[in-house]
C-alpha cells in the first residue's frame, strides 16, 4: 500500500485555482458544520432531561431567527455560485493558438492523433507550458476524458465533437481515466498523460517516425472520398469552395449564420441536410457510416488547415 494520499497531484495552474476554491469551501463547510454540531452537543448536554438549567428564556418570536439565517445562507450560497461560475467560464474560452489534438474514445481505449500525424493509444504526450485543445469524439457509447491532476473532465458523447483545453505547467506522468461508465472494461479505459519539456516533446514526436501530417492525410482522403469532385473548381456540381471556410461565419439557407468550427464541419459531412449553406442546393450526400471517426478527424484537420490563418499564429 502507498500510505495515505491526501491530495491529488497538481499539474496546472488551473488545478491550483480549483484547489483554492475547494479549500475555501472546506473552510466554510467546517465552520458551518462545526457550529451546528457544537450547538447540538451543547444544547443536548445543557438541556438534558433532569438538568436544572434555566429554561425561562424560551424563544417565542422565531421569525427573526428564520429571516436572519435564511438571508445569511442565501448570501453565502450566491457568493459560492458566482465564484464557481467565474472559474468555470474559463473552460469555455480556449486560447486561439492552442495545440490541437484529436481524441477518439471507443470501448475501451482512448486514441489520440497529433497534428503531425503521430498516433497513440491510452497515452497522451503534451509539451509543458503550452495550451492544448482536445477535439474529442466517441465511436460508440459515452465516455469521459478525465485527468485528475488537471481537475478537468469532459464527457465525450457519440454523434458530436466535444472540446476541452488545458495548459499543463508541470512535467510528469499523470493518470488518465474514463469517468463515464462504458461497459466491461470501463476501469481499464485509461492510461497516462505525459507532460514533457518542449525539447523532449519534439524528440518524442520525431521518434514516432516520419509521419505525414494529419491535414495532409486529410487532403488525401478528401480526394479518395470524392469530396474534391464537388468542392474543387471544375467539379460537376456547384458546391462551396472550402478554402477560408473554417473559423468564419457561414450563412445558412434558413437565414441563420453559424461559425464554421469542428462541430459544424463534422455535421456537414455526416448530416449535410441539417445545415445547408445558403445559395447551394442540398445535394451533398451524407457520409454517415462511411467515414470512421479517425478519418473524420483527418478531414476536419484538412479543412481547418485551408481555413484562414488562425489569429495569433
Amino acid at each position, binding site marked *: 500500500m502507498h500510505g495515505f494520499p491526501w491530495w491529488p497531484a497538481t499539474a496546472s495552474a488551473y488545478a491550483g485555482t*480549483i484547489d483554492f476554491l475547494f479549500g475555501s469551501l472546506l473552510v466554510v463547510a467546517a465552520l458551518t458544520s462545526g457550529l451546528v454540531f457544537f450547538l447540538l452537543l451543547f444544547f443536548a448536554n445543557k438541556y438534558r432531561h433532569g438538568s436544572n438549567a434555566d429554561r425561562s428564556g424560551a424563544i417565542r418570536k422565531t421569525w427573526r431567527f428564520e429571516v436572519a439565517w435564511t438571508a445569511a445562507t442565501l448570501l453565502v450560497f450566491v457568493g459560492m455560485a458566482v465564484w464557481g461560475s467565474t472559474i468555470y467560464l474559463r473552460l469555455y474560452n480556449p486560447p486561439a493558438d492552442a495545440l490541437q489534438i484529436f481524441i477518439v474514445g471507443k*470501448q475501451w481505449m482512448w486514441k489520440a492523433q497529433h497534428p503531425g500525424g503521430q498516433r497513440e493509444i491510452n497515452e497522451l504526450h503534451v509539451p509543458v507550458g503550452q495550451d492544448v485543445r482536445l477535439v474529442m469524439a466517441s465511436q460508440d457509447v459515452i465516455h469521459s476524458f478525465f485527468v485528475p491532476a488537471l481537475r478537468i473532465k469532459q464527457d465525450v458523447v457519440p454523434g458530436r465533437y466535444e472540446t476541452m483545453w488545458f495548459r499543463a505547467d508541470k512535467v510528469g506522468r499523470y493518470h488518465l481515466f474514463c469517468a463515464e461508465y*462504458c461497459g466491461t472494461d470501463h476501469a481499464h479505459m485509461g492510461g497516462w498523460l505525459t507532460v514533457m519539456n518542449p525539447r523532449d516533446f519534439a524528440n518524442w514526436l520525431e521518434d514516432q517516425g516520419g509521419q505525414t501530417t494529419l491535414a495532409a492525410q486529410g487532403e488525401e482522403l478528401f480526394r479518395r472520398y470524392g469530396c474534391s469532385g464537388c468542392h474543387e473548381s471544375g467539379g460537376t456540381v456547384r458546391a462551396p469552395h472550402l478554402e477560408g471556410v473554417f473559423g468564419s461565419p457561414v450563412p445558412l439557407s434558413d437565414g441563420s449564420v453559424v461559425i464554421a468550427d469542428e462541430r459544424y464541419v463534422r455535421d456537414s459531412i455526416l448530416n449535410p441536410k441539417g445545415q445547408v449553406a445558403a445559395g447551394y442546393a442540398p445535394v451533398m450526400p451524407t457520409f454517415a457510416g462511411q467515414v470512421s471517426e479517425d478519418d473524420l478527424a483527418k478531414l476536419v484537420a484538412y479543412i481547418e488547415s485551408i481555413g484562414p490563418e488562425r489569429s495569433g499564429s
Partner: protein
Amino acid sequence: MHAPHDETYLNARVGIRSWLLTTDHKRIALLYFAGITFFFFIGGIAATLIRLELITPGPTLGSPDFYNRLFTMHGIVMVWFFLIPSIPTTMGNFILPMMIGARDLAFPRLNLLSWYFYIAGGLITIAALLLGGIDTGWTFYEPYSTFYATGYLILAVFGIFVSGFSSILTGLNFIVTVHKLRAPGMTWYRLPVFVWSTYATSLILILATPVLAMTLLMLLAERVLHVGLFSPQLGGDPILFQHMFWFYSHPAVYIMILPSMGVISEIVPVFARKPLFGYKFVVWCSIAIAAIGFLVWGHHMFVAGQSLYASLAFSFLSYLVAVPSAIKVFNWTATLHEGWIRFDAPMLYAFGFIGLFTIGGLTGLFLAALPIDVHVTDTYFIVAHFHYIMVGGAVMGFFAGLHYWWPKITGRLYPDYWARFAAILAFFGFNLTFFPQFILGYLGMPRRYQSYPPEFQIWHVLSSAGASILAFGYALPLFYFAWSILRGSRASANPWGATGLEWSTRSPPPPENFAATPTVVRAPYQYDQGKPCMQAGDV
C-alpha cells in the same frame, strides 16, 4: 373470543387471506414492511459484495462483468425498491391516517393495489437480475442501453415501470386523504410536519414518476423496436435521455429525503419536550424543496455537454434548493434550546440523521460549484455525497421512525440499550465507510471501477472496514425487534410522551384506529414545562 377492547388491527382477523386481501392501511403498511425489508436485504448483499471486491486494486471476487452487474443490481434495488417507497409506504401508510384522525386512507383498495404493483415490479426486476443481471448501472445511460447492454435489460426496466404505478397511486392516495379526511379541528397548520412532508413527497411522486415511466417506455421502444430517440446511430440524442432521466431522478432524491425530514421533525420536538422551532418555516421549506427540486436536474450534466448557460442556471438553482434544507437543520437545532432532552434510541437516530445530513448537504454545495463538479463528478466524491444523503439521511430517518413508531405498530417495547448501541454503531460505521470516499473522489478515483490504481487502496480498505461495522449496525435491529415481538413488554398508548393523535389511541391500534373520531384542539408538539398537551381534545 377477544373482548372488544382487546381487539387490535393485528388480531381482528386471521389467516393469510385476511392479510393479502386486506384494505386496512395498517396491515398494508406491514405488507410493505415485509417487501422493503426483503429488498433492503438484497441490495445490502450486493453492497457487501461490492465493498469486498474493492478491498484489492485488482479483480477479487469475479470478472469485470460480474462487478458491473453487482453495482447495477445494488443501485436499482436500493433506489426503486427500497429508498423511494421506504418511509411513505410503511410509516406513511400506517401513521399518516392516524395523525390526521382518519380511519383509513381515502382509497383503501387502491392502496392494496399499489402494494401489488410494487411487489410485482420488484419481483420482475429481481428475476431479471437473477437470470443473469444487467450491466447498465441504475442510470441506463444511452446509447449504451439500446445497443451495448447485455442481459435482461428489458425485463428489469419493465419491472421498474410497473412499480412506478405504485408510486403514483400512493402519492394520489395521500394527497386526497390529507385534503379530505382530516378530523374536525385538524387545520392545515395543525398538521404534524410528517404529514406535510409526506404531502410534499406525494406531489413529487405524482408529478415526476410519469416522466420516468415515459423515459423507460422510450428506452424500451428504442431497444426493442429501434425507434430512434436517444441513440445517435438512429438519429436520436443521448443528452435528451439524460434530461428526461434526471428530471425524474433528481426530484426522486427528495422523495427519499423529505419523508425522513418529516420523521426527524416529529422526533426532535417529542424528545426535547418542546414545540418545533419555526413550525411554519419547516412546513414551507418542505413545499419549497418539492417545488425547486424540479428545477435543478441539470446539475447532473455539467460535463455532459449541455449548454454553458444551462449549467450556470442549474448551478444557481442548486444553491437555491439547498437553502430550505439548511433552514431545517437550523430549526431542529434551535428546537433543542431550553428543552428537556431525552436520549432514547429514536432521538439518537435523529441526531445521527442531522449530523450525516448536514455533511451530505454541505458537500452538495461543493458539487453545485461548477468547476468543482467538473473535477469530482463521476468520482467517489459523488458516491460519498449521495450516500450521506440517501443512507446517512434517508435510511437513518427510516430507522429513527421505525424505532419511534415501533411500540405503536407492534404494541411492544424493544430493549432500548441495544437500540441505542445499534444507532451509535451505524453512525460510526457509516462515517468510516463513506468519509474516505470523499478523499478518494477528490484524489480522482472514478466510480464504477472494479480495478483501480494501487495508491487508492488504503482508503478502499478503510471504507470496506466501515461497511462491515455498518452492516452489523443495520442487522442488529432484526434481532432485538424479533425479540421485542416475542418477549418485549407491552407498550402503553403513549410511551414517549408525544402529543400526536396516533398516540392517543391504543398500541397497537384497534382496526378502526379511534373509538370515536377525535377532535383536534391545538397545534402539534405543545408541551407545558416538558409535559405533553395532547392534540386531541378529551373525547
